[in-house]
């Protein structure tokens, strides 16, 4: 199946470590994913997700520390509320929520990171490319 472009926003303290851990354990997962490391899942503004789709991502992974594990105490709790709302907004706007995976991955969960990526890639590949969003400019010139 054709490769898709998945952009992953991962928190510095847990999920980036998780991805690192997956690499260290030589776990195999599809190469469709590109990571953007941010300091905390609380820093991941929904506009990042929109921007990713605008610039050609077919899917997005958002990942942070498990509840209670946030390096900044509560960043992920705040993020959780925001994402809960944003996900409903996406659904209400008719954007397929299956293109975005929200996840908690700790620094030791290399296996979970592999699973999150594999599942997301599989799902997004089945959905196909998301040209529909990027192409919304309707470049007609008339």
């Amino acid at each position, binding site marked *: 199946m054709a490769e898709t472009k998945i952009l992953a926003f991962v928190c510095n303290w847990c999920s980036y470590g998780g991805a690192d851990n997956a690499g260290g354990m030589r776990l195999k997962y599809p190469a469709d994913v590109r990571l953007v490391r941010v300091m905390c899942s609380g820093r991941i503004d929904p506009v990042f997700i929109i921007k990713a789709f605008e610039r050609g991502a077919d899917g997005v992974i958002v990942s942070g520390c498990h509840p209670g594990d946030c390096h900044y105490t509560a960043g992920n709790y705040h993020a959780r509320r925001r994402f809960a709302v944003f996900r409903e907004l996406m659904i*209400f706007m008719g954007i397929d929520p299956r293109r975005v995976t929200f996840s908690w991955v700790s620094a030791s969960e290399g296996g979970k990171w592999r699973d999150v990526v594999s599942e997301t890639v599989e799902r997004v590949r089945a959905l196909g490319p998301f040209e529909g969003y990027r192409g*919304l400019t309707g470049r007609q010139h008339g």
Partner: protein
Amino acid sequence: MGELQELARKLLADGAVKVVIGYEEGPRGVRPAFITTPKDADRLVFDERCVHNLTMYLTPTRKHIAALGKPAIIVKGCDTRSLAGLIRQSQVKRENVVVIGARCGGVLKDPSVKAAIAEDTVADRCRGCTIREPRLVDHLVGEPKPAPPGKSLVDQKIDELDAMTPEQRLAFWHEQLSRCIRCHACREVCPNCFCVRCLADKAEPLESSAHLRGNMAWHMVRAMHQAGRCVDCGECERVCPADIPLRLLNRKIARVIEARFGHRPDDDPESTAPIGSFQPEDGQEFIR
């Protein structure tokens, strides 16, 4: 002269305030008025055409109003929720403004024509109003009024949309948002849009072009920024020169927030904002 005009005159004459922000008769119906002298207090009107939420004139972005001096402002019950929000968000100090509450029985859908409040004339946002007598006030004027009739059509439309397929919903929003010309009038009239520099005024990350991609992003981002703060005053929808049903978005989010976090916008400046606070036990069924 009426109670309201007399009160305004007195406040101005006593020097308690320098300007009364209210409503006056304009060429096309009622409009915002800025009364600075006692003799002009006669110009004030308040009736069911006073749809405008005037509280945004209190935000620090309105430097030319602040320059007039201490204001008194006329608010309806619904407007006090915006006022409470502004106080909660440190934009307005309660003691720096004299609040004149006007009892209200609903405003008109089409404020350019005088009409009685009835099932088919009342603004949709007034349906189911629970705050006809403003509480966060220094003075209260007007007679108690009956509750506006009817059931919210916005809620009905949201239910309809929820029942559609994702493709139908997307098509609906594409049709609505394709009319957006990115004038940002929705933002400018919103009492919650007091940012010194709006995200949309920067070159990044939002695209400022009025194509569907830029419009989708703008309205999603705006809806997110309003989450938990929007009081459904309906000003954005009223002023939209493209008639985009913006209340649908904000109301939908308000419903999500109420369902998930049990929060409703209120007129208490001390209450907690749902976005910006959390409970450890918040639902996370959507998170892997």
